[in-house]
């Protein structure tokens, strides 16, 4: 396996991304979107596409930059630091990975349009409180030589902006993944008022027509396409969360160095020093799991489950600590909406649930490790 240090290319990519985001999508930009009730910035996404971010997992043949999952993680991490709201995970990571599992002209075209930033996707898997693909209730009933999809999906991230939806549905012999346009007759999207002010929808499918061509991969075998896609998404989301942790931690350490109380810098209080030091240690350890997950997805994707769940589990516990300490160490101001720390806390909470919470991934780790 490649080493657990960033290659020169990766270092350059990270610097470039950081530079761009600090300019084009700092936290203040997200605040403007939030205040304006906007959940998507098409212009920003176009710029990212031009830089090759949208096609980070798209083959060069299809016009992508094909930089791989470790690179995708680096980009996600930087976006996490500034809370940049983009369709990156849904379209460029999850959908692109899914499409790459199936060869064919249609998927190649879709990949090309994703790389160009002209096509967005959303993954419609969740239905209840917890991430549980196997418990899918939405059903696709055979009708003639096609299907009729009925039921309701919820917490469909980027469901509002997406041109197309990847819908997981029950079929006769198992689960099937459908790839349909989001404006197809019978599809009703209701935006959810998310605490992280991002795009998520509750989507009702009322007897929606689907043909065999709408099936991505094989009928009754969604997982051979969906598992790699979800794991790619989980790894990138974990990377975003570790970037988020680093962002929140950076704000906190700066505050410890400038804020005075009882006449001295609060950063000189040993209790706070040790808590900050402990948090830094957790962030460092999580960074290793994130990098390892990217390396595994790039080198041995079929054996990456343990690495990916390890990364998401660590990212979740670390982000929770980072935002709680962030708010607590800032005191009252950390609680005000005028201050950015709250954004990190809310985004961390949503990211914790998306694609599997700590318990889900810790159980995955346990099973893979034989208990």
């Amino acid at each position: 396996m490649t080493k657990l240090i960033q290659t020169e290319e990766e270092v350059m990519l990270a610097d470039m991304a950081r530079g761009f985001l600090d300019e084009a999508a700092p936290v203040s930009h997200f605040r403007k979107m939030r205040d304006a009730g906007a959940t998507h910035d098409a212009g920003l996404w176009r710029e990212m596409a031009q830089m090759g971010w949208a096609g980070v997992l798209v083959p060069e043949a299809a016009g992508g930059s094909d930089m791989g999952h470790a690179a995708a993680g680096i980009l996600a991490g930087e976006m996490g630091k500034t809370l940049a709201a983009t369709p990156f995970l849904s379209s460029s990571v999850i959908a692109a990975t899914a499409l790459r599992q199936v060869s064919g002209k249609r998927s190649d075209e879709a990949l090309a349009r994703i790389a160009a930033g002209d096509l967005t996707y959303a993954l419609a898997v969740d239905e209840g409180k917890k991430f549980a693909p196997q418990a899918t209730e939405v059903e696709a009933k055979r009708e003639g030589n096609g299907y009729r999809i009925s039921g309701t999906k919820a917490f469909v991230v980027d469901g509002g902006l997406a041109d197309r939806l990847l819908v997981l549905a029950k079929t006769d012999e198992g689960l099937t993944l459908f790839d349909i346009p989001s404006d197809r007759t019978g599809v009703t999207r209701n935006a959810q008022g998310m605490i992280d002010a991002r795009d998520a929808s509750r989507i009702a499918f009322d007897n929606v027509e689907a043909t065999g061509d709408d099936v991505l991969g094989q009928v009754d075998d969604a997982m051979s396409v969906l598992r790699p896609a979800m794991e790619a998404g989980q790894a990138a989301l974990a990377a975003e969360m570790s970037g988020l942790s680093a962002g929140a931690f950076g704000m906190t350490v700066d505050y410890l160095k400038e804020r005075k109380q009882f006449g001295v810098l609060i950063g000189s209080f040993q209790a706070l020093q040790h808590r900050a030091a402990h948090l830094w240690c957790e962030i460092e350890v999580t960074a290793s799991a994130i990098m390892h997950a990217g390396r595994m997805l790039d080198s041995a994707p079929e054996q990456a489950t343990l690495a990916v769940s390890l990364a998401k589990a660590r990212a979740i516990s670390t982000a929770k600590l980072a935002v709680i300490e962030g708010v607590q160490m800032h005191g009252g101001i950390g609680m005000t909406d005028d201050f950015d720390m709250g954004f990190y806390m809310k985004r961390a909470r949503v990211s914790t649930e998306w694609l599997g919470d700590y318990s889900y991934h810790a159980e995955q780790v346990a099973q893979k490790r034989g208990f």
Partner: protein
Amino acid sequence: MPFSSDPETFRNELRDWLKINCPQEMQDAPTTEAEICWGGKNWVFSSDAQQQWLERAASVGFTVPTWPQAYGGAGLDRACEKVFHEELARINARLPLQSFGIWMLGPALLQFGTEEQKLHYLPPIARGEIRWCQGYSEPGAGSDLASVQTKCEDKGDHWLVNGQKIWTSYADKADWIFALVRSDREAPKHKGISFILVDMTSKGVTTRPIKLISGISPFCETFFDDVEVPKHHVVGEVNRGWDVAKYLLTHERQMISAGGSGLFGGRALGAIAADDAGDGGLSDATSRAAAMDYEVNSLAIGLTLERYKDMAESGAGVGDASAMLKYMGTELNMQRMELMMSGGGAEALEWDGPVGNRAGEWLRTKANSIEGGTSEVMLSIVSRRVLGLPG
């Protein structure tokens, strides 16, 4: 009508009284903010029942059951107070009235006020006619409460107050504010502070709400520009306001910590979470283990609150140890909401989702360990004043 002072006789009298006087609508938990009665000049009753319940309770002192009858209370001792709460809980009756006047100013006046002040200010609080708010914190002061900057100058026949307060809960709805002000700029930090009472309608008092990460909040910023305050509106000695504040902080800690304390009567978080998870139950080890830890700590902290009340009532001073109640109670409460959020999963990620505004409550609890003294301050109080560690 006078009630018996024997707990069990009182219980029976109370049951009869409640049967007649507690409206049916008042016998279930409030579902909206408006259904919690705070009283005050601008209060709009959410229902006739709410008004009846307040008036009937006030008429026999049950809005402030432990206050002396002379000041609008029912003069209940601890044993009868316990019975009082047990009986209200039994029929799931709401408190007829809640306010900072009851929780904070009342106890301060009972301890430090003159007889005139007690007779003038306490009964309107008991009747829910005057609503009070608290003015302690100032911008930039953070945990260092004693670094009060709001100026209070002696102008002979009145005080002239200038400055700004922050985190003044419900100041926008309050009729009066009790505040800490700097009445002697020369004296050492803790010796130049006075505890003053200000009519919010006085010229020069303005207030505006603060938006929190949890959304709209009861907190406000309150500004004083050349506000004139009568000389006799000081509680306790001039420049000794810190004593009053310290007393109230101790008191407030117990109050806030009560929020987090589980009681044997209440429903276990684990049971709620199990429902939350539905058929899944608390099948996953992580959630079940966390819920069990929470339950164990919650029950034990609840018992500690009981024990400290018993100690206080028996005359054994609780004092600085109450910092422990505040610290443990608020940490527990935050832990509780973390578990509730995890239980709610995706449905708890919306501001107004299938499980209501649980996210808002969750975010709100993050302030518990900051307001009324941060957890760090509480731990320092324990280590210095209780354990006597140096520095």
